[in-house]
């Protein structure tokens, strides 16, 4: 049986199919609840995937990721609070629409746009990833080391509001990745005699702490809200909330443009869905000519934001699968989960594990279609989940974090790592230092060190191969351009603040 048919048949297995339905449903719910992001959902699911077959674990994680981003739009539209940061731009027009009695229409537009964006990016993934992998197969240690160092700088430069903070986060991730045995010689590094640290800091507790516990600690600073959010969909006029052919025509161009923007952003490592949705929203406003209706309940605003953030989902898998470089925090988590399953992402995956690649394609596609079905028929029950007070939700999630960190290796040291990572993530969040570069760099440091040392061993310690290689030089030039542009932006912003104060 060929790999595609094998992957397709796997979805016929009851365990895989039920996992897909559950993951999509849970992803929608978690995405909808403000404070519980897609990152948390995927991070908490990783410990469970260790004990699952590869196809089932991929279906679980991708189902959560695919549907979670759309889930975020539910609270953005109904409560004026995005369930995930990626839906922040949806608020601008989604909430005004809800105030005008058009919440159901906004949610349906959001669903259609999400569906289009997600399918668009999956098609792009299927077309581009194998070609990119084919090109990357020619890479030797010099090119691989250069590419991974390029990723380090790009995610550091582009992921945060501040150039220095993004790079600092990435550098901390690299330091944390040096704990454990040296990959070439096996020399223990910073293990302090602990056998459990010989394999390095465990990835599961690190990500559970950085994303889930850090968010819970942040909620605890507000004393865990006890209030029940109030909104009602019962009084809406059904006729006004129906999506007409004219509406579809109206949103078609912004959706196509936003899907292209989202996919382009998704391919670049470290930027993510939040920036994509803001860029697409700005683009839709500019392209409309008269942008005065934007911000007052224009369906094009909702459509652009939602198609862009969902288009990021499939596109982030392009560098993840083809190069082994995670496109964002969630694909970094997925990349780690694949490694736990014994599958190494990178160009060779298309040759050594084609079934895994097809499972990822199909999981993305089926999760998107299922999200559309569940999202269309279950908008009202989904909206009900927003009423759960955080005082009951967050301590329960914290308990799952503790259990999840422990089960990764049946070792208490992982619970302590999770706690440390949670505090670090909390401090980073409060000081506006992005967390995603830390995790992504933590994951790419080991292959970077292997490639770097292989290259230097071959050249007997000389850096000349790096200085003469066309791939290295091109990537260095790209980093220099990105660095210069971001530095210029940062300096402009610094000058703007004193000017505003003077005014």
């Amino acid at each position, binding site marked *: 049986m060929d790999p595609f048919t094998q992957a397709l048949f796997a979805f016929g297995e009851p365990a895989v199919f039920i996992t897909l339905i559950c993951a999509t449903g849970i992803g929608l719910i978690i995405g909808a609840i403000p404070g519980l992001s897609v990152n948390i959902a995927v991070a908490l699911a990783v410990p469970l995937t260790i004990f699952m077959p590869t196809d089932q674990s991929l279906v679980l994680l991708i189902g959560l990721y695919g549907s979670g981003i759309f889930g975020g739009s539910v609270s953005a539209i109904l409560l004026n609070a995005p369930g995930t940061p990626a839906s922040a731009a949806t608020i601008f027009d989604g909430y005004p629409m809800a105030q005008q009695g058009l919440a159901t229409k906004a949610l349906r537009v959001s669903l259609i746009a999400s569906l289009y964006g997600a399918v668009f990016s999956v098609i792009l993934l299927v077309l581009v990833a194998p070609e990119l992998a084919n090109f990357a197969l020619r890479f030797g240690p010099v090119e691989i080391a250069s590419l991974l160092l390029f990723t380090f700088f790009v995610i550091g430069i582009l992921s945060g509001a*501040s*150039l220095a903070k993004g790079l600092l986060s990435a550098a901390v991730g690299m330091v944390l990745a*040096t704990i454990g045995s040296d990959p070439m010689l096996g020399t223990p590094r910073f293990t302090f005699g602990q056998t459990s640290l010989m394999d390095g800091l465990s990835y599961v507790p690190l990500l559970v702490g950085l994303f889930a516990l850090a968010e819970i600690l942040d909620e605890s600073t*507000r004393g865990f809200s006890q209030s029940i959010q109030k909104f009602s969909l019962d009084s809406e006029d059904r006729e006004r909330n129906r999506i007409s052919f004219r509406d579809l025509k109206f949103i078609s161009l912004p959706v196509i443009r936003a899907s292209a923007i989202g996919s382009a952003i998704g391919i670049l490592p470290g930027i993510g869905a939040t920036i994509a949705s803001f860029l697409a929203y700005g683009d839709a406003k500019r392209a409309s000519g008269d942008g005065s209706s934007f911000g007052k309940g224009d369906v094009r605003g909702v459509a652009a934001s939602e198609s862009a953030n969902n288009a990021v989902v499939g596109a982030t898998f392009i560098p993840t699968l083809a190069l082994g470089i995670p496109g964002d925090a969630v694909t970094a988590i997925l990349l780690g989960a694949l490694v736990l399953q014994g599958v190494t992402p990178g160009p060779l995956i298309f040759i050594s594990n084609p079934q895994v690649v097809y499972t990822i394609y199909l999981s993305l596609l089926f999760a998107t279609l299922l999200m559309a079905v569940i999202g269309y028929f279950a908008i009202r029950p989904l909206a009900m989940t927003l009423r759960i007070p955080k005082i009951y939700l967050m301590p329960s999630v914290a308990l799952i974090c503790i259990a999840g960190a*422990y089960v990764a290796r049946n070792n208490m040291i992982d*619970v302590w790592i999770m706690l440390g990572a949670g505090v670090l993530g909390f401090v*980073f969040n409060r000081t506006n230092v992005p967390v995603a570069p830390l995790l992504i760099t933590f994951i790419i440091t080991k292959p970077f060190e292997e490639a770097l040392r292989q290259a230097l*061993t071959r050249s007997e310690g000389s850096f000349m191969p790096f200085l003469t290689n066309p791939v290295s030089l091109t990537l260095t030039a790209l980093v220099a351009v990105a660095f210069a542009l971001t530095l210029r932006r940062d300096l402009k912003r*610094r000058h703007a603040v004193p000017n505003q104060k003077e005014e």
Partner: protein
Amino acid sequence: MRADRVLALVLLAAAALYLGVLVPEVGRQQTALGTGDFYTVGPTVLPVFAGGLVVIFALAVLATTPRTASELQFTEGLGGAALFAGVVTVTAFLMPRIGFLPVSVGFLAVVFVVFRAATWWICALLTLALPVLLDQILRKVFLIPLPGAALF
């Protein structure tokens, strides 16, 4: 002083300790193990590179952030976070000693009391049911035993 500047200073100090004390120790271990002659680059190359990057970017944060306090105070609501982190710490400390079930029941009960959850029956239901549910799912479905429950 702004919290991001304090963070940069802490990371700078940590990087100095890492580069000044911990990395040379790895170099000494490598020499003691007698490895590294064949390889032109040893196990300290990446740690030195990574530690150096932390120093550079921590200094960059110090140089680029203003000295004045930010609009959102870092300390705002910090007591709640410290309290919650403290409860998690005690839970992690007691878990291998008295088992997952009693410690998680205690964890939820303490959090609900400390953060003053309003509806007692929801608290009671969650406190008693969630730990058992988690334990049973992990034990029966995924065959992972959580630390033994000495009191149950």
